[in-house]
């Protein structure tokens, strides 16, 4: 599509991620204890951040949909859940690839790892439910409840390193009552990668919402029904 702002943003994103790679491999110093494996941190942490952000948007979109019945909020929640699942998977896989050389194993049943896996399973269940729900209005309402309830696991994942003793490293950037535990080049690169991954999230979300809008339009054109953006309220018996 000509003059599509999303196509331009995609190009900015590709250039930005390439610049990020250069910073990760050629600018930041190698960490003295962990060696080169520590560089996984620059994609592992931004993936976790985007997963939190995506599931927070699922929460907000689901609440807004239940309050207004405006299907556009449901599209936002649904599209965001897909991106959240992608980045939670990337977070887990990169964590495992860091764990093998550092811990000597890909996986330990540490609270942070286990809860992240639980989070992934919940939102994969959310997407599986959406894919199989026969009644789209009822399906969207039930999915909204799952989306809201699933978010309860996010603070548990984030604070698990403070609340329970585990193998996962403690927080290094937003630490309670202290400055980030890393040199400025590492911090700048990390924040830059967080910004790039956030941009990727925005692009994916916009594309996802556009796709759901097109699917809805096709459904309406095929049924020859007049277009409507408001789902009917469920009847109360």
């Amino acid at each position: 599509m000509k003059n599509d702002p999303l196509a331009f943003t995609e190009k900015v994103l590709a250039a930005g991620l390439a610049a990020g790679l250069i910073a990760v491999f050629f600018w930041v110093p190698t960490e003295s204890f962990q060696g080169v494996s520590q560089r996984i941190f620059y994609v592992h942490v931004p993936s976790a951040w985007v997963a939190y952000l995506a599931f927070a948007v699922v929460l907000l979109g689901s609440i807004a949909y239940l309050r207004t019945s405006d299907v556009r909020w449901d599209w936002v929640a649904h599209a965001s859940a897909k991106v959240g699942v992608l980045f939670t998977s990337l977070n887990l896989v990169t964590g495992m690839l860091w764990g093998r050389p550092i811990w000597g194993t890909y996986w330990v049943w540490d609270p942070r790892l286990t809860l992240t896996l639980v989070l992934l399973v919940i939102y994969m269940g959310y997407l599986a439910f959406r894919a199989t729900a026969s009644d789209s209005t009822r399906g969207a309402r039930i999915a909204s409840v799952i989306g809201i309830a699933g978010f309860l696991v996010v603070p548990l994942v984030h604070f698990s390193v403070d609340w329970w003793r585990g193998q996962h490293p403690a927080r290094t950037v937003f630490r309670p009552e202290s400055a980030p535990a890393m040199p400025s080049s590492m911090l700048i690169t990390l924040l830059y990668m967080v910004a790039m991954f956030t941009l990727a999230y925005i692009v994916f979300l916009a594309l996802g919402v556009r796709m759901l809008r097109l699917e809805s339009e096709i459904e309406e054109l095929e049924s020859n029904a007049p277009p409507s953006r408001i789902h009917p309220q469920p009847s109360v018996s």
Partner: protein
Amino acid sequence: MDDLGYLGVAFVLVWFGIVVFLISVTRRQKALEKRVEELRRTANRGPVE
């Protein structure tokens, strides 16, 4: 050397995930746009007399 291998696999997987997601969504979007266009054309043509 092993550590470099794990690092390489991690970065390749992240970029692969991002690119595959982007390509699959873009392809699906194009297919949907085409279908919408077809349906609109059919709807505008109206019933054949």
